[in-house]
């Protein structure tokens, strides 16, 4: 499906979604409450068949956090980007690791780097950072390097 066709199809199936086409990708913006229903549709509808989560990450916008899911269909070769905005002070979102198994690692990385709490994740603990880093979240914009810090 082309970007336009995909957008029409997605609007039909997921009415709660809004779209942003300013960039290279088709961006679908969701609220945390709609995420589970929407991802279920994306993965399991035969005409969509998004069977590959090739990137999951997080962005700190200082006012809020955004979780970004890059999805691909290995059968149809179409892609979509799903974005979900979170509260920066209490970031919580449902896990998608039961839909795409690879999310288990990605979510652990987002957890250690940004402190996002993934609900119902099977094994939410630090991925790469050594023990004792819980709660420090080095990729948050307000993280301060304890050794050499320069503020602009």
């Amino acid at each position, binding site marked *: 499906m082309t970007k336009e066709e995909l957008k029409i199809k997605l609007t039909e199936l997921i009415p709660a979604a809004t779209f942003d086409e300013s960039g290279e990708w088709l961006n679908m913006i969701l609220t945390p409450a709609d995420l589970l229903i929407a991802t279920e549709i994306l993965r399991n509808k035969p005409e969509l068949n998004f069977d590959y989560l090739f990137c999951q990450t997080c962005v700190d916008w200082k006012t809020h956090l955004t979780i970004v899911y890059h999805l691909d269909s290995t059968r149809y070769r179409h892609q979509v980007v799903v974005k979900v905005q979170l509260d920066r002070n209490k970031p919580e979102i449902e896990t998608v690791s039961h839909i795409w198994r690879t999310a288990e690692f990605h979510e652990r990385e987002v957890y250690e780097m940004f402190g996002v709490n993934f609900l119902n994740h099977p094994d939410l603990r630090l991925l*790469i950072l*050594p023990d004792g880093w819980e709660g*420090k979240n*080095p990729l948050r914009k307000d*993280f301060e*390097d304890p*050794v*050499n*810090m*320069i503020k602009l």
Partner: protein
Amino acid sequence: MTDKFQSESSLAFPGEVHQTPSGGVLVSKLDDVINWARSNSLWPLVFGTSCCAIEMMSAASAKYDWSRFGFEVARATPRQADVIIIAGTIVNKMAPVLKRLYDQMGDPKYVIAMGACATSGGPFFYNTYSVVKGADHVIPVDVYVAGCPPRPEALINALMLLQQKIKKGLTREQIREESKIEYQKAV
């Protein structure tokens, strides 16, 4: 550099030849011969942690070919290596590994810090949570190479500096002291 330093650092075999009617006799010091042998057969450890390793590979391959100077036998085990070229960023999690590799190398062993990251942390000196600000916080370094990353010529130059250092057979402090005396004599 003085002429004396240059002649000492040349690739010539150490010693003097005394002519006799039946041929030449070479007189040399065993220490010098050992240092000459050591410096011309430096086996580097296969150790690259980021983009400097690409330049190191280039220095090893056909175009720059560091085997011309005796570095070709890159070893994948520290027990057979003489020199470790720290080619890349050392992060806090890598530091104990680097220390362990260094400890496992047999004496005499040498260290080259290649590029900005290994020298000082380089581009990661400020506002980072993970990078060691210079590999010399972990192990002693013999030669530092500037650059980000340094060109293969710079690495080969550093290796040849290391050879000169080994041939002199002196410690860093002794070399510094000697060059001071030479400078005063020249003035």
